[in-house]
């Protein structure tokens, strides 16, 4: 492995700016690394070698011309394949979008390019970001670089595996119920779901619009902070974009934790934690206290309803958002025997969507259908208010909430595929954050007895994503997690 693939995004950008090495050399080393290990890991759905080399040469030419380079100069970035890059595929891990070429850049892609980052390729995901293991990709499952017999998590599993395996310095994912934080925890990375509205969703293929948020997966807090600084800030193309200016999260996330009050929600720990996870949590809390934070228990009494609320609201929004995949405007098309338009819709969708996507469309359609709307969708929206109320109340007493990111370390392939409910339960700690619209981060805080990464999650008030990074930095600095996957 070349030294360049071991560098952080921050060090790559600094090195390219100084002229220690070229952006082209950085891209080449990462493409070599992909060629060497991606046959095992299978993080990428497509590698954009030519355009990445060309983009890197453009960065080098810009420097040679004496122009100032951007925050992410020459940093090789992987994009989850539900985020648009003009002219490249955006399959969403689905057969129904096979052959589709994105007509424009997502706002995050545009901002990465403006910061002189280089897009290396598009990464694998559970179909339409619905899943927690990458086993729902219509193409192939991505493997966890720490143990190839285990899942990388999902749905941003390809992005997580690419960064963990040094096949990208940084990646973007999307998080609707934990899809950035859970794979980050499983792969030993920092994964940040920003406050709802902090990052534009323009050019992100919609799953559940009131929950979806794009965020970075990185190997350090510094890198996550740099990425967030680049991609966040108001975007007039997204009507749910918060009207706040760009911020310097690297500077804002520095500093000690003096006076910061942390809350440990009792209800997250009720079922008892596995000993490894309990250990990681305790070490993390010790590190936080040593840096000046205080920790107290808080109560969030509606936590137990989050799973049900999520699995009404997310599928309902998905059933509406995915209505656009009908064989008329994009992707695969399949005619019915009678040749009618209705058959065209039904055949195209029946053949194009995989089992989990169908399951969720069915669930959402049922929850929104006449006679069940009040009992399911409206009811779930009301309980969502109660869950959000738990967060509002907790944030009166504490500045941050801290929990494990997941109930356990990465599970094995096939372990949860037969029972959708068991799979859904693996996101039980990450779902409430999306329902409340607050920001959340997962940071590595130790390893299990089998050597698998374990993550801690922080959640903060809306707009206080810098505090997430500041607290996570204390856990990072304690050195509870180290090493890299052996591939």
């Amino acid at each position, binding site marked *: 492995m070349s030294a360049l693939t071991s560098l952080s995004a921050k060090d790559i950008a600094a090195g390219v700016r100084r002229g220690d090495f070229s952006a082209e050399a950085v891209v080449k080393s990462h493409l070599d690394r992909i060629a060497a290990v991606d046959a095992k890991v299978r993080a990428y759905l497509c590698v954009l070698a030519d355009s990445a080399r060309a983009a890197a040469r453009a960065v080098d030419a810009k420097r040679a011309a004496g122009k100032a380079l951007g925050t992410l100069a020459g940093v090789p970035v992987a994009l989850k394949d539900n985020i648009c890059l003009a002219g490249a595929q955006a399959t969403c891990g689905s057969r129904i979008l096979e052959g589709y070429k994105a*007509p424009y850049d997502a706002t995050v892609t545009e901002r990465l390019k403006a910061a002189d980052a280089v897009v290396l390729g598009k990464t694998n995901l559970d179909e339409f970001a619905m899943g927690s293991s990458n086993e729902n990709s219509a193409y192939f499952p991505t493997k966890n670089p720490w143990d190839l017999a285990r899942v990388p998590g999902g749905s941003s599993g390809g992005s997580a595996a690419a960064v963990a395996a040094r096949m990208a310095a940084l990646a973007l994912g999307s998080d609707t119920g934990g899809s950035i934080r859970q794979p980050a925890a499983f792969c030993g990375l920092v994964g940040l779901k920003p406050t709802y509205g902090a990052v534009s969703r323009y050019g992100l293929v919609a799953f559940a619009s*009131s929950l979806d948020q794009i965020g970075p997966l990185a190997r350090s807090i510094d890198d996550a902070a740099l990425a967030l600084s680049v991609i966040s800030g108001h975007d007039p193309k997204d*009507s*749910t974009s*918060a009207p706040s200016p760009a911020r310097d999260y690297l500077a804002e996330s520095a500093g000690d934790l003096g006076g910061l009050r942390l809350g440990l929600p009792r209800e997250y720990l009720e079922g008892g934690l596995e000993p490894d996870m309990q250990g990681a949590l305790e070490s993390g809390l010790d590190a936080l206290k040593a840096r000046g934070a205080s920790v107290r228990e808080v109560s969030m009494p509606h936590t137990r309803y989050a799973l049900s609320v999520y699995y009404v609201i997310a599928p309902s929004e998905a059933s509406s958002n995915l209505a656009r995949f*009908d064989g008329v405007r994009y992707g695969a098309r399949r005619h019915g025997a009678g040749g009618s338009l209705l058959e065209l819709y039904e055949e195209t969708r029946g053949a194009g969507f995989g089992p989990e996507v169908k399951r969720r469309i069915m669930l959402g*359609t*049922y929850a929104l259908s006449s006679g069940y709307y009040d009992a399911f969708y409206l009811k779930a929206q009301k309980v969502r208010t109660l869950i959000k109320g738990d967060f509002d109340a907790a944030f009166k007493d504490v500045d941050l909430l801290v929990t494990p990111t997941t109930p356990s370390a990465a599970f094995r392939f096939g372990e949860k595929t037969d029972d959708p409910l068991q799979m859904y339960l693996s996101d039980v700690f990450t779902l409430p954050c999306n329902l409340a619209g607050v920001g959340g981060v997962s940071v590595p805080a130790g390893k299990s007895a089998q050597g698998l990464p374990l993550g801690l999650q922080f959640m903060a008030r809306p707009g206080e994503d810098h505090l997430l990074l500041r607290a996570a930095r204390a856990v990072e600095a304690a050195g509870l997690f180290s090493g890299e996957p052996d591939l």
Partner: protein
Amino acid sequence: MPLSLDEVRKVARLARLKLSDAELSRFEGQLGRVLEHMADLAALDTAAVPPTAHALGLSNVMRADEPVESGVQEALLANGPEREGPYLKVPKVIE
């Protein structure tokens, strides 16, 4: 709250999904179990609770109504499975 096969068939129709008999019967069991889990919501008294559609609380985001060139018409049309000039073709709808 078990779901009947007929209800599953009706929902598939509403969702414009052609499902095989095997899929229909699999979903009958799986969706029934998921809906059973969701029965916990019914037990909560929410009579006085307003619904939350959106956590951010932004409403009526307006902008000036100024036409701009998207520049992507051709790229959009090129994604169509069947196309004729600047149109996307679908089977005849009106007899």
